[in-house]
């Protein structure tokens, strides 16, 4: 049982963290090495792969024409879905999305939506009738912790890499023309997750650290250093001052990642 292994590891990890050390010799505030590749799936309108240490996430973007929501007739539609693919971890099972994959999708969605990353006004073909629908599908291929940050990063990277069809309207009919245009992207939110282990905050937790953490907090930071989405998770709590500390860490880390990626 996983819980038996966790008990043994729990002590080891807690002691390490109390001494500002970690299983993989990182500092508490260090991110794992991040690798980013764009355009890896030719069939998709946009795609990206993110490697965060051993965690691997692929995001594919598909774009279709559809109807806008009744309350936003002048905006395109964003839909985020996440699949915890069974090959990625012994804990993932086939079947309809469980609460973990739904939460993951909704966190990724919130970061993109609230930062207004996509210029949805430019996705309108006929106001109230026809718009482009952007499907963001998050595919987790290997789970070694911090799926949230890896998925959020891969999603934005894939959107930046997305091309959509050129079209013209002739006699009230939409005709697809040759060539492509870039999906209009305005912001590049970056999500940073901290786990609380004991009274310390640990950035970019490993799977084993997640198994022993008290709670986690994920904070999305936009291009202007503002917070645009937050999600606390896990069965523990944070003191208010730890929340504010996490926000500062998130801002700092997001800036580092942004600089490195030149976003």
């Amino acid at each position, binding site marked *: 049982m996983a*819980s038996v292994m966790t008990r043994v590891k729990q002590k080891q990890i807690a002691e390490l963290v109390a001494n500002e050390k970690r299983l993989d010799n990182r500092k508490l505030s260090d991110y794992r090495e991040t690798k980013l590749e764009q355009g890896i799936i030719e069939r998709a309108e946009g795609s990206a792969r993110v490697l965060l240490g051993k965690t691997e996430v692929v995001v594919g973007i598909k774009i279709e024409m559809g109807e806008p929501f*009744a*309350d936003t007739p002048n905006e395109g539609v964003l839909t985020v879905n996440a699949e915890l693919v069974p090959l990625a971890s012994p804990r993932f099972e086939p079947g309809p999305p469980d*609460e973990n994959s*739904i*939460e993951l*999708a*909704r966190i990724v969605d*919130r970061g993109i*939506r*609230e*930062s207004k990353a996509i210029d949805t006004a430019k996705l309108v073909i006929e106001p109230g009738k026809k718009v482009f629908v952007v499907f963001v599908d998050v595919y987790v291929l290997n789970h070694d912790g911090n799926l949230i940050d890896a998925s959020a990063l891969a999603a934005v990277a894939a959107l930046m890499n997305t091309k959509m069809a050129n079209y013209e309207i002739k006699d009230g009919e939409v005709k697809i023309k040759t060539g492509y245009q870039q999906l209009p992207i305005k912001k590049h939110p970056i999500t940073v997750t901290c786990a609380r282990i004991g009274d310390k905050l640990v950035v970019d937790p490993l799977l084993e650290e997640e198994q022993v953490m008290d*709670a986690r*907090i994920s904070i999305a930071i*936009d291009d202007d*250093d*503002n*917070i*645009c*989405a*937050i*999600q*606390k*998770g*896990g*069965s*523990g*709590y*944070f*003191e*208010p001052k730890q*929340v*504010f500390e996490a*926000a*500062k860490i998130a*801002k700092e880390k997001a800036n580092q990642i942004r600089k490195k990626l030149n976003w």
Partner: protein
Amino acid sequence: MNEKPEKLIDKKGLRLDGRKPDELRPVKLQVDVITNADGSAYIEQGKNKILAGVYGPREVHPKHLALQDRTVLKCRYHMAPFSVQERKSPAPSRREVELSKVIRESLEPAIFMEYYPRTMIDVYVEVLQADGGTRCASITAAALALADSGVPMRDLVVACAAGKVDDTIVLDLMDTEDKVGSADVPVALMPNLNAVTLLQMDGILSLEEFESAVNLAIEGCKQIYTMQKEALKTKYVSVKEENKEENKEEAEE
């Protein structure tokens, strides 16, 4: 369709419903409202009307979910089809699945889970009418229902949101402020332990604004906390009075 109001805060600094920025909506709390449940509570906060019921600790179903060293807490947040303007399908939406998860995680730190190994505690939340801030009101009611059920707890959990509308940080957003405003920060707190058990945010806030929103939400939580304790007292004082009366009658006989 509801028209978007142009201003959410008027010249006097008052909100659409006449509240000051740091003012809560009227809150009404009641415990022991469902006779079948082991614990229950009802909350009205603004136009929110929410029921919470607790069953357990009881046998785990399905059995393979049982844990050898602690109880399993299950939580279901559900909105009635008639609780919102446009009928909501009764099937659980993705939003409801996520909220059920974060509400459960906001309650777990308060419960002595290890007291009841191989059991399950069910928390059911039904939103009868929604008016913005249902997740917070649900947590406030669910924690009361748990306390009413007699499960040993470290503290009550109480939740309240703060946010930003028209460049002002405000407490306890109602429906329109939630939808049209620029940010919403729901916070759940165990006041005696100074522990934040739920924290979410959407919208745009600077780090400074975020800090003041969280601090304001915590102040709101503390106000509702007093009412929560009052609601519990009201029930148990009335039970005590009843017993007294009975004892007196018996003595007289």
